């Protein structure tokens, strides 16, 4: 870890006033921003690569705003029929919607249009991926714990909105894949018991596809959702500043302070630079790699479909659920309940979303830990949580693969049906296995931490004693490392207070309490705790004995021991015998 040990080395110096400063003073006298900003500018941010993941999301969002505004200059959100007369000859003369025609126009006749379209789409893909990666960091380090639960909720809603925004954007160009995606959305809506068809008619302004969905989605895409996103990102940042950033445990870092660099100039320079890196990466991707080649899909036509009809990756999980769901339906009094769509298309996403949003509260309830936390946990120090994430990533990966089953079958020459059957079982079997593996792995890492604390680190120096036995030298780790490793708190298994109420009858609340105690037990039971003071002393004592054991050997240096790292080796050579 490369971290600042202080808040800065030089005091701030006053600049001599310039014209710009004059203007700034003029503005400040009227707006009072500087006074407000002064405090924030001195705000300190800890420095670690994983704290910059959210920034990738932020900067790709800014890239989306820039490129999106460019696209609005030429995009025509209308489903009116027109005849294409642009320069792409493969489609010239074909009747199509104005939306599709204008997308072709942006791609082929607007200077830089295709680049900007592709940048916009790549940035969208990166935006959501970056949000997820950022979320994983927050999750793994326990940064969502009190007092930051609200910011976790905001983050979850941002992710959801990002996905909705992406889907809306994907539907705008009105190409074959857009329409196929909307057709699926239509199916999902229609699977709502009783109300489905009314909702669908409301959404499309009549029978699918109608002629208003593109203009409606356009409003959603360029006004409604971006507005919400901006507002929520603002709230997200405000809360971040208000709570202050979390930090890794280490010497000098406590629950009460933040150690890092001030916002100005170090952090701002880094962040600003990072924007250009993100923008540049997006520009490279947009310039070099085709994304969404709508001209090859053709305009949407309900009678057509193409192999390789998939949504963007962030919807892959929904696609996968739909593809592996068995075709269950119930027919009741002339109504059809489409479980095959209702479960994967509505129940599953809602359940998943609730789980994501509710996670901090669920964990709090189980562990009984309602204290404030500003120091982060290392993933290994919360093995159950870490393993849970590993399992969820597995679920996501499996479902995305299931959503691309035809692509997998085609590219790897597999049997389409067998992939689907495999996924049906795998989705229930593989994640629990990954969970167990990840949990054990984390606990092993805890064990290795404890070993370092108690026995020191392995030097790689092999000692041979008079009896001919071999031992490896362990040396104590540095104070700083020992501090860091022991900074974690001890875990406490929640104990149910009393299982019966005043009259000796099992109370419903008590039943919940017992469940909570059981879950807490399951949660923590295999965790290793950091060594106690006695254990540490015992460990050091042991090391001293070991050292005494080595002392008599000192004089009788066997050849090569002079390089054991504890001797001055200036001028030393291998001794000749």
């Amino acid at each position, binding site marked *: 870890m*490369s971290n*600042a040990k202080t808040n800065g080395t030089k005091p701030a110096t006053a600049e001599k006033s310039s014209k710009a400063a004059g203007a700034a003073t003029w503005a400040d006298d009227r707006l009072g921003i500087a006074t407000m900003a002064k405090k924030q500018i001195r705000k300190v941010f800890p*420095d670690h*690569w994983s704290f*910059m*993941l959210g920034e*990738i999301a932020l900067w790709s969002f800014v890239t989306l705003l820039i490129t999106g505004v460019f696209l609005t200059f030429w995009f025509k959100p209308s489903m009116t*029929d027109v005849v294409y007369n642009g320069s792409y*000859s*493969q*489609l010239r003369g074909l*009747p*199509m919607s104005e939306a599709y025609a204008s997308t072709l126009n942006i791609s*082929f006749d607007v200077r830089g249009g*295709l680049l900007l379209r*592709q940048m916009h789409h790549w940035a969208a*893909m*990166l935006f959501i*991926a*970056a949000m997820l990666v950022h979320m994983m960091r927050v999750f793994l380090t326990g940064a969502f714990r009190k007092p930051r639960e609200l910011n976790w909720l905001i983050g979850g809603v941002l992710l959801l909105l990002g996905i909705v925004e992406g889907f809306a954007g994907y539907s705008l160009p009105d190409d074959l894949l857009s329409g196929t995606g909307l057709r699926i959305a239509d199916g999902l809506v229609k699977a709502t018991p009783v109300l489905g068809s009314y909702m669908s008619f409301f959404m499309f302004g*009549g*029978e699918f596809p*109608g*002629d208003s969905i593109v203009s409606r989605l356009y409003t959603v895409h360029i006004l409604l959702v971006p507005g919400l996103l901006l507002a929520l990102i603002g709230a997200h940042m405000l809360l971040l500043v208000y709570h202050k950033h979390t930090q890794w445990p280490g010497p000098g870092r406590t629950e009460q302070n933040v150690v890092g*660099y001030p916002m100005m100039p170090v952090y701002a320079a880094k962040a600003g630079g*990072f924007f250009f*890196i*993100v923008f540049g*990466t997006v520009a490279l991707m947009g310039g*070099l*790699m*085709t*994304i*969404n*080649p709508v*001209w*090859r899909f*053709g*305009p949407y*036509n*309900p*009678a*057509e*479909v*193409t*192999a*390789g009809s*998939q949504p*963007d*990756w*962030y919807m892959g999980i929904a696609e996968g659920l739909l593809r592996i769901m068995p075709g269950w339906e119930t027919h009741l009094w002339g109504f059809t309940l489409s479980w095959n769509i209702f479960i994967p298309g509505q129940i599953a996403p809602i359940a998943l979303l609730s789980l994501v949003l509710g996670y901090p509260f669920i964990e709090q309830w189980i562990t009984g830990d309602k204290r404030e936390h500003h120091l982060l946990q290392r993933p290994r120090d919360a093995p159950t949580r870490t393993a849970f994430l590993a399992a969820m990533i597995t679920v996501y990966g499996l479902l*995305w693969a299931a959503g*691309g089953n*035809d*692509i997998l*079958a*085609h590219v790897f*020459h597999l*049997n*389409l049906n067998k992939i689907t059957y495999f996924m049906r079982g795998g989705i229930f079997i593989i994640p629990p296995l990954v969970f167990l593996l990840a949990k054990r792995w984390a606990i092993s890492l805890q064990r290795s931490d404890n070993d370092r604390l108690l026995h020191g680190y392995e030097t790689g120096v092999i000692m041979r004693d008079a009896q001919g036995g071999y031992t490896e030298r362990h040396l104590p780790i540095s104070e700083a490392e020992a501090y860091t490793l022991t900074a974690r708190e001890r875990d406490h298994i929640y104990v149910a207070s009393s299982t019966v109420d005043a009259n000796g009858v099992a109370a419903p609340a008590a039943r919940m309490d017992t469940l909570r105690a059981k879950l807490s037990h399951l949660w923590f039971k295999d965790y290793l705790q950091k060594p106690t003071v006695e254990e540490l002393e015992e460990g050091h004592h042991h090391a001293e004995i070991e050292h005494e054991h080595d002392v008599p050997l000192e004089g009788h240096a066997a050849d090569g021991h002079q390089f054991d790292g504890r001797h001055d080796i200036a001028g030393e050579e291998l001794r000749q015998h």
Partner: protein
Amino acid sequence: MRLLTRRISGGLSAKRRSRFAAPVVLLLGLLITGGAYAALAPANANTKTDDATTIAKGRALFLVGCASCHGKNAEGILTVRGKNYGPALAGVGAAAVDFQVGTGRMPMAQPGVQALQKPPAYNADEIEALAAYVASLGTGPSIPSADQYSGKVSNQELVEGGEFFRTNCTACHNFAAAGGALPGGKFAPSLVGVSAKHIYEAMLTGPQQMPVFSNGVLTPQDKKEIISYLKSSETEPNYGGFALGSIGPVSEGMFAWLGVGVLVGFAVWIAAHTSRSKKKKEA
């Protein structure tokens, strides 16, 4: 039949709000039925008269290379379970033989879910002889002549060919003709680089899982337009840069994650380069 295809792939304005949102399965079903009808109808009578020597040569080749599966008189051989070692070939026509042998699918190397392409085992003369022999067994589609599958078409016809392609072929072959999976380990191959003649014959004879697109379903003119669309797509530059396999959003998603990986790498790099003074102290 023809009317149906026309209506489905024709004027878009009507279709947008139309009842033709029926699943593509239905469409294919109709096409297959239509294809079978057209194959049986006498419209495609083999007009070319092959001379007896070619037929005799073909029969000799057939006895050596094909009879083990298709039977000595191409009557087909059934396995114990009632499946085909090879189907009867009377009536499949010269086009089927030219396609199957010309793309190396026949002689099939080993029984499997699908006869795979490989370098052809016979030269042009031998293929012609085999085709003549099989054609002599019963009337079927004959090998198309060059002017049927190549030659200039207007841009309007090309665009129309694209519409035919998207309506009839993309469901299996993918929007960029990059191929796609079918149930049970079968697949529709990529059409990139397939000769115009073989595309024509494939439509005419419907190899394996592929439906027959007889001349009643897609007229010779329609077929020619499809072929010219496919050929012009092959030479189309990749306007957007690397095509990433032209298999749709799945590969795009994988590259997006690669992009995020790169950016995370940058984050690590930036975080590692902090203030200079500290670096020196540590060194």
